Each structure stands twice: as C-alpha cells, then as structure tokens.
C-alpha cells in the first residue's frame, strides 16, 4: 500500500469508516442473531484495515515514476490470500473426508458437523483459493497483455480485501449454521449484496484497464477473464434474489418457487463450474502456458473458436443436474445435448494446450512448473470428457447421488483448477517479486508428485466407490426386492473413504510445501538485476531508491 497517494488514503479511510458503521449497525440490529456476530467481524476487519492505512499515512509520498511501472502490490497480497485459503480449505476438506470414514470426528459439536464443514470446504477452496487466484492472476495478465498499468490504485485493493471479507463472512456463517442451502451459493443475503458491490467494482476496474491498453488487440486470456467476471455477476444476482426475514435477521427466502428454484440453482451451479472454475482458469492457461513454455499458443484462431463455443454452450447445460426430476423432459434433453456438444470446445482448448508443448516436451520433463500446467490441461480434457458422459441421462441414472460425481468434481478441482493455479503461481511469483528463480526447484518437484499422487488416489477411490454404490442401489433379487440396504452400501464404502482422505491429505501437504517454497522465494532468493536499457539514467536511480519491502 506504500504507493497510495494522500487522496487515495483519504478515500480508503472514508470507505472503511462507512463499512465500520455498517458493521456496528449489523451488530446492533442482529444482536440476537448470527448476523450480529457478522457485524462484529465486519467492524473488526474494517478497523484493522483502517489501522494499516492510518499507520503508514505519514510516510514519504509515493514515487511519481511509479506510473511508468505495473502496479503489482495487490498481486503480492493476493498470492498470500490464495495460498492461505488453499491450506484452510483443503484442511477442512481432509477433515470432512475423514468424518465420512470416522464419524466421531465431529466431536459431537454442532459447528463441526459434516453439514456445516462441507460448505466451509467448498467455499474455502472454490471462492477462497480459486477466487483469489483468479483475481490475483487477472491483475497480472491484464496489465502485461494490455501493456498498461491498472486503471487506478484504490479499486484493486477494494476488490481484493472486499472479496476476502465476503469469503470470511460466508465461511464463519456456515459454522454458525447460517446457510441458504443452495450449492456453492450458501452465503446469506447480506454477504451476497456485498459481493455484488465488490464484483461490479472488479468489472469496472478490468474494463477501465483494458480501455487504457497499448495493444490494438485484446489477448484471448482477457476474454476468458472478462467472461468469468460478467457471467459470475449475472449468475450470482439471479440465483440470490431473496427476501430477508428482516434487516436484523440472517435468514432469507428465495423468490423462486419449486422446480424453477431448482432450475435457477443448477443453471447457477453448473455455470459456476463453467465460468468460475473453467473460463478464468483457461485464461491462466492461455497466458502462463505460452509464457512458461516460451512458445506461442499452437493456434490462436482455435482459442477464439473454443472461447465462443464454451461461452455459449455452457449456459444451457445446467439442467443435466436435474435428470429424472419434475423438470420438463425437453429441458433435461436440452441440458444433456449441450453437455455432449461441450466436449468439442473443451477438447479444442485442451488439445490446443498440449499441441503448444509439441517440440518442448524436454521442458516438461525438466521443469516441474510446466509439468503442473501440462497435467492440468490433461485433467481438463479428462474431466470435460467425463462431464459430458455423466450428463447423458442413462449414465446419470447410475452415477447420480453417488461418489462418482464427487470424483468427477475433484478430477476437475484438484487435477485441473489447483494444478493450473500452482503452475501459474510458480511462474508468477518470481516475475512479480523480480527473483531469478524459485527458492527450491526440488520442492516444486515434490509438490508436483504429492499433488499428482493425491489427485489420482482420490479420483480412483471415488470412481470405485461411486460405481459400487450405484450398482448396489439398483441390484434386485429374484423376488424383485432390492438386494442391498443403504447401510450395506455404506459399509462397502469404508476403504474408499479412507483412501480418499489419504489422497486429500497428500494434496494438502503439497499446498503447505508450495506456501513454504514461495515464502522462502520472497524472503531469500536474490533479486534479479533489472534491465533498464531503454529507460533514462535518472529514472533508473529513482527506481533503485524505491526498492524496499514490498508492502
């Protein structure tokens, strides 16, 4: 925050004061309700940030030459948010997995029951880890591909800290039992409203930065980021149209009735996968893969075709979550058909990525970071194929409500989303902190194998248990009665649940190793000698003086 001007600090302080007052109001109005606790959290969060702003406000004024450099300070903070949320979210995930094998791990408490820690896990990894990774890398990619500095210095901080406040309010709410009971949209109305404000700011910042670009053409990675920002805003608003019981009450009721609510929820839910967990991460793929491989993307035109394919097909696929329900049959067919068609643009992207590496496979062998990205593209191809397959109605009759779905989601979340994120972070961190390399290439290698082994163990365990479950539930005896009770299938799951928890644990250890490695890179690796051939000598000296601690 050292580069903020006095005016920006005043504005930041004003925003934080308003937020603190909102926090007090929430705490007062909701003193008999969980919303009161959230009011206290909002108050403490804004006062903490206010202290940060105030305590540095009498420092030296920012260096005027900063305008001729990229604005990377929010990216550095975003990297830490990403890494910490990963450890938190994955830890809760391993815990939830262990509870399925050993149910007494909820310690007979309400807050640690499976129904509460599961959304804490999904929100922690999807929104905490994934969302921070997307915001952080998008700030990096949009500046580099536009050859322009972020449009202003305040709104990136607002987006980053505002978004993390949303995540904190959401996760703490689940532990208290606050939930909308909508998958991936569990956070209640006040958190949702706050996210809308943050998200619109993010959108405006992104568009303003693109408008300042020096490149005539907007690089395809930005299209994906923009699709992610725009569509998530639409999805979030429509799925969270609710009426709260009162302003001092956390509970709200959705305006959508019956089967419409299911349809809206899964239109949201599947597009959250599409635009949160796919589009934004494809943006990372299209920037960090060519960068790391030092080769241009195999086919730029193919990337454009697959962009529009993914954007327009995914929108219609959500109803495949509601096969054999009250949803009209033709809507189920529509979702199924579009899900199958989605394979074309999905494999176009995965193929484009893998063909980019043709001629650079020796780099994949030697460089674990590039291997992260390559393996992510591979898992992207694998899980999109599996997704199209599972969306076919007869297949779904076997797979639905079983662990196969869970295995599919984790092939995507661990194999694709997390691997591409760590590959991007290992490329981003040395570039942003101007280090010549990561602290330890060996630790990147260790992380790769932990992550890869963890994913494979997890996915195979869930494939096995899911198909066994599905088959046990549909096996009939000669007399026409079910051959197995539900508890029989549960007993059969026991070894797979242990294997799943172990796979997740390996992945979690990998995330801890990555955090340590990045920490040591920032602390210990010598800075890269900057090349400034095309900058006047005076500017060079000013640069040297400004090189201090990052924040």
């Amino acid at each position: 925050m050292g580069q903020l001007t006095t005016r920006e600090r005043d504005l930041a302080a004003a925003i934080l004061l308003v937020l603190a007052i909102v926090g007090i109001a929430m705490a007062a109005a909701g003193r008999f309700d969980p919303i009161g606790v959230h009011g206290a959290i909002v108050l403490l969060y804004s006062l903490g940030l206010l202290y940060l702003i105030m305590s540095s406000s009498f420092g030296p004024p920012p260096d005027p030459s900063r305008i001729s450099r990229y604005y990377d300070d929010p990216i550095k903070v975003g990297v830490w948010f990403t890494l910490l949320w990963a450890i938190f979210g994955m830890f809760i995930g391993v815990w939830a997995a262990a509870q399925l094998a050993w149910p007494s791990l909820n310690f007979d408490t309400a807050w640690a029951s499976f129904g509460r820690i599961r959304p804490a896990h999904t929100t922690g990894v999807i929104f905490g880890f994934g969302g921070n990774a997307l915001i952080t890398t998008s700030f990096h990619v949009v500046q580099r591909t536009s050859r322009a500095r972020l449009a202003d210095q305040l709104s990136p901080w607002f987006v980053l800290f505002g978004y993390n406040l949303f995540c904190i309010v959401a996760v703490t709410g689940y532990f208290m039992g606050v939930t909308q009971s909508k998958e991936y949209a569990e956070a209640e109305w006040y958190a949702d409203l706050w996210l809308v404000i943050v998200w619109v700011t993010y959108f405006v910042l992104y568009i303003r930065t693109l408008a300042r670009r020096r490149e005539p053409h907007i690089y395809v990675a930005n299209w994906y980021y923009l699709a992610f920002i725009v569509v998530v805003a639409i999805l979030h608003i429509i799925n969270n149209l609710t009426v709260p019981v009162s302003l001092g009450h956390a509970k709200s009721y959705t305006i959508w009735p019956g089967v419409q609510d299911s349809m809206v929820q899964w239109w949201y839910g599947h597009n959250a996968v599409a635009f949160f967990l796919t589009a934004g991460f494809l943006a990372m793929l299209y920037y960090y893969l060519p960068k790391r491989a030092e080769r241009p993307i195999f086919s730029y035109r193919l990337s454009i075709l697959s962009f529009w394919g993914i954007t327009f097909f995914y929108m219609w696929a959500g109803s495949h979550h509601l096969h054999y329900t009250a949803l009209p049959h033709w809507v189920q067919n529509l979702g199924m058909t579009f899900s199958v068609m989605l394979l074309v643009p999905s494999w176009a992207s995965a193929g484009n990525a893998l063909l980019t590496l043709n001629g650079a496979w020796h780099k994949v062998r030697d460089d674990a970071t590039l291997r992260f990205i390559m393996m992510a593209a591979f898992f992207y191809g694998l899980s999109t194929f599996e997704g199209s397959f599972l969306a076919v109605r007869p297949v779904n009759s076997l797979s639905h409500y079983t662990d196969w779905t869970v295995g599919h989601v984790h092939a995507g979340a661990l194999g694709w989303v997390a691997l591409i994120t760590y590959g991007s972070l290992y490329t981003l961190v040395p570039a942003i902190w101007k280090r010549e390399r990561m602290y330890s290439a060996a630790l990147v290698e260790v992380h790769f194998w932990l992550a890869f082994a963890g994913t494979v163990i997890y996915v195979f365990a869930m494939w096995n248990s899911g198909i066994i479950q599905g088959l046990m539930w549909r096996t009939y005896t000669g007399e026409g009665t079910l051959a197995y009770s539900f508890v029989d299938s549960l007993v059969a799951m026991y070894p797979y649940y242990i294997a799943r928890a172990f796979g997740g644990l390996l992945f979690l250890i990998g995330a801890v190793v990555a955090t340590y490695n990045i920490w040591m890179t920032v602390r210990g690796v010598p800075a890269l000698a900057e090349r400034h051939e095309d900058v006047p000598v005076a500017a060079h000296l000013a640069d040297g003086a400004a090189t201090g601690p990052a924040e």
Partner: protein
Amino acid sequence: MDVTHATLVEAAKSWGLFYLIGFSICVIIYTFWPANRELFDRAKKGILDKDDQPWT
C-alpha cells in the same frame, strides 16, 4: 400475449436454434477473416516479449 410454457418451448426449439446457428456463423467469419490474421499473429507472439514495463 400470454407467455405460457408452450411459448417458451417454441422459442427455445426454433428461434433459440437459429440464434445459435447465426451466432456461430458470425464467430467463424470473424475468426477466419483474412484481415484479422496479422492481428492474431501479433497477439499470439506479443505476449512472449521480455519487456516488463507499461508502454507509454
């Protein structure tokens, strides 16, 4: 005019289809438009530039 279930079905099954076909034709024309080739080539190679400062 009443918007009923039948209206939505008709829109989805006819106009929705034409809209998507029309849209995909537009995308293909844009992608393969000869004048865009130079722009795309530049975008493809430009990101590999080692330069790490905004252009002014």
